[in-house]
């Protein structure tokens, strides 16, 4: 006979209808004979019945198949893309070559930015005025005219409609003549036996010979240097002639400022001056300009080139402003020993223009000039400088001083905004 323990193990299986024929027989027989097991079996049966009864009301009685089948969705097809996506989601570590690249992107990005910055910095030219660029067009060539550059010293022929790629040097022969149309509505007539070097559309150096200039108003002053001095123009017509020991400047229209190392003057229309390196005082004398104009008329621009040049320059909108800043300082007729300049500091820029300081009396008669080197502006530790007055007695007796500052673009194009100009007496 089976033990009570063995039989009790069969209770659930029997009640669940899962017992085999032999087990069923053993249990039924044992329960009839053993009162204890009979009681336990009845109790288990009651619990099972209690469970069935309790769950009975919640039982699924209907067939779910019709309603499920009625709204069966589209089956997802195992196409390649889906599979790839699933695989990537399941195995994120198994990425391709680009996956690794993506992982390192946060590192690459800043490195790339720094590298680009370095490339940009390296390729940024500090001497922008010396950069090769198109400054205008040759409007007339007659006789022997040649062009050369520092990079290509070989002298080349010049023809109308050639573009002027600066820096470039032009030379005219005994019978040569040349008209240069420079951007900013300027025309330079170059007479025979002249040599000039064009730096850009607003700056050239006349080394020898003579030129007749008609300068349009531009966003920068126009500057001509000669071996003897410097001519600064804001828009005017004038002639420049380099003689053996001096330069003659004659103004037809408007006004130009002529200077050398020591002094400066402003010429009005119909005035002429001779400037030599040692000249201390620039005297202006009245002259007739008709001869000069007549000489300029001997050179007439090539029609086709002139048309092309003016058509091209028409589209360029010109912004007019003057780089010159003028300050008026009251001195109450006392002697002045120094001039203080203060400006707004820019902490990052480095290619500053140097400044020329021009001091005139209350009748705008020139008194003296000084130069402030660009290094003063590049030094970011201070935002002011002092310019010594060569002869304090020279400035005594003036109630006011006109102090104008003008950038000198040879060292850089960055202009400095001056905030205050003051003077001190000894």
């Amino acid at each position, binding site marked *: 006979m089976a033990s009570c323990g063995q039989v009790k193990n069969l209770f659930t299986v029997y009640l669940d209808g899962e017992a085999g024929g032999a087990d069923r027989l053993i249990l039924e027989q044992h329960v009839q004979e053993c009162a204890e097991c009979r009681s336990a079996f009845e109790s*288990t049966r009651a619990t099972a*019945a209690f469970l*069935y*009864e309790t769950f009975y009301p919640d039982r699924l009685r209907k067939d779910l198949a019709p309603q499920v089948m009625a709204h069966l969705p589209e089956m997802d097809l195992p196409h390649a893309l889906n599979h790839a996506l699933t695989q990537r989601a399941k195995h994120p570590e198994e990425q391709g070559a680009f996956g690794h690249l993506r992982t390192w992107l946060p590192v690459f990005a800043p490195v790339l930015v720094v590298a680009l910055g370095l490339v940009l910095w390296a390729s940024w030219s500090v001497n922008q005025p010396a950069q090769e660029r198109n400054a205008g067009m040759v409007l007339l060539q007659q006789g022997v005219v040649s062009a050369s550059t520092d990079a290509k010293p070989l002298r080349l022929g010049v023809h109308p409609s050639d573009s002027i790629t600066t820096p470039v040097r032009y030379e005219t022969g005994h019978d040569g003549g040349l008209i240069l149309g420079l951007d900013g509505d300027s025309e330079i007539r170059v007479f025979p036996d002249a040599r000039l070097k064009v730096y850009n559309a607003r700056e050239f150096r006349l080394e020898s010979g003579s030129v007749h200039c008609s300068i349009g108003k531009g966003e920068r002053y126009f500057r001509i240097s000669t071996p003897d001095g410097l001519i600064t123009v804001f828009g005017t017509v004038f002639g420049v002639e380099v003689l053996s020991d001096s330069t003659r400047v004659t103004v037809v229209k408007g006004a130009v400022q002529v200077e050398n190392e020591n002094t400066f003057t402003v010429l009005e229309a119909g005035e002429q001056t001779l400037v030599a390196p040692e000249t201390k005082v620039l005297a202006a004398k009245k002259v007739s300009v008709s001869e000069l104009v007549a000489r300029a008329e001997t050179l007439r621009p090539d029609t086709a080139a002139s048309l092309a040049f003016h058509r091209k320059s028409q589209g360029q909108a010109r912004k007019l402003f003057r780089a010159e800043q003028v300050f008026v300082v009251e001195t109450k007729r006392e002697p002045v020993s120094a001039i203080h300049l203060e400006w707004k500091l820019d902490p990052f820029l480095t290619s500053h223009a140097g400044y020329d300081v021009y001091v005139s009396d209350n009748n705008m008669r020139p008194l003296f000039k000084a130069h402030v080197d660009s290094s003063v502006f590049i030094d970011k530790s201070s935002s002011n400088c002092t310019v010594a007055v060569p002869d304090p007695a020279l400035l005594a007796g003036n109630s006011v001083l006109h102090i104008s500052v003008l950038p000198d673009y040879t060292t850089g194009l960055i202009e400095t905004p001056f905030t205050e100009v003051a003077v001190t007496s000894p």
Partner: protein
Amino acid sequence: MHPEDAEQIIQCLAGDAEAFGALIKRYQAAVYATAFYYVGRYGAAEDVSQEAFWSAYRNLCSLKDHNRFGPWLRGITTRKAANWLRRHIARVQQETPVPRRWTLSIEDARRGPDEALRIAERQEQLHEAIDALPDRYRLPVVLRYMQELSYEEIARFTGDTPDEIRAILHRALGQLRGILAQRNISEVDFPWRRAGK
């Protein structure tokens, strides 16, 4: 596993949607009981069951082992139920669960309203006792006593072997009796009326 599962799954994948009907018929009781076990008291068992079957059909091609359709379907059902609870958590938390449906048989009525209420209370206590069972025991108990599934059917759905189910149910019933005795709840003496197959 059911011998016909794999065959019907292949038919489904080949485009014969009707073959899925056979799978629904075979597993709907288990799926419904599982859903009921999680969301039954909120009346959502049927909705969750439907969603589970739809999801199973949609993703049928991602089933790798066609012989383990049952456990795979059980996983889907569990997730669908969990999703349902998550989606309705705000509402569910504020609502009093729907009282379990009690059908009062004629015998119950003869016993009088007091007796019927006493039975209802005890049944509620039985549900609490089932909730106190270990996780692994609960689903087989619900599948067995709610839908009267055979050990074979339960095993096919849970992924256990029939012998494991047999042991689980034996121990579960013993523990339930222990819990009920501990709480001094006597089984209501129902007449033996186990529904036949």
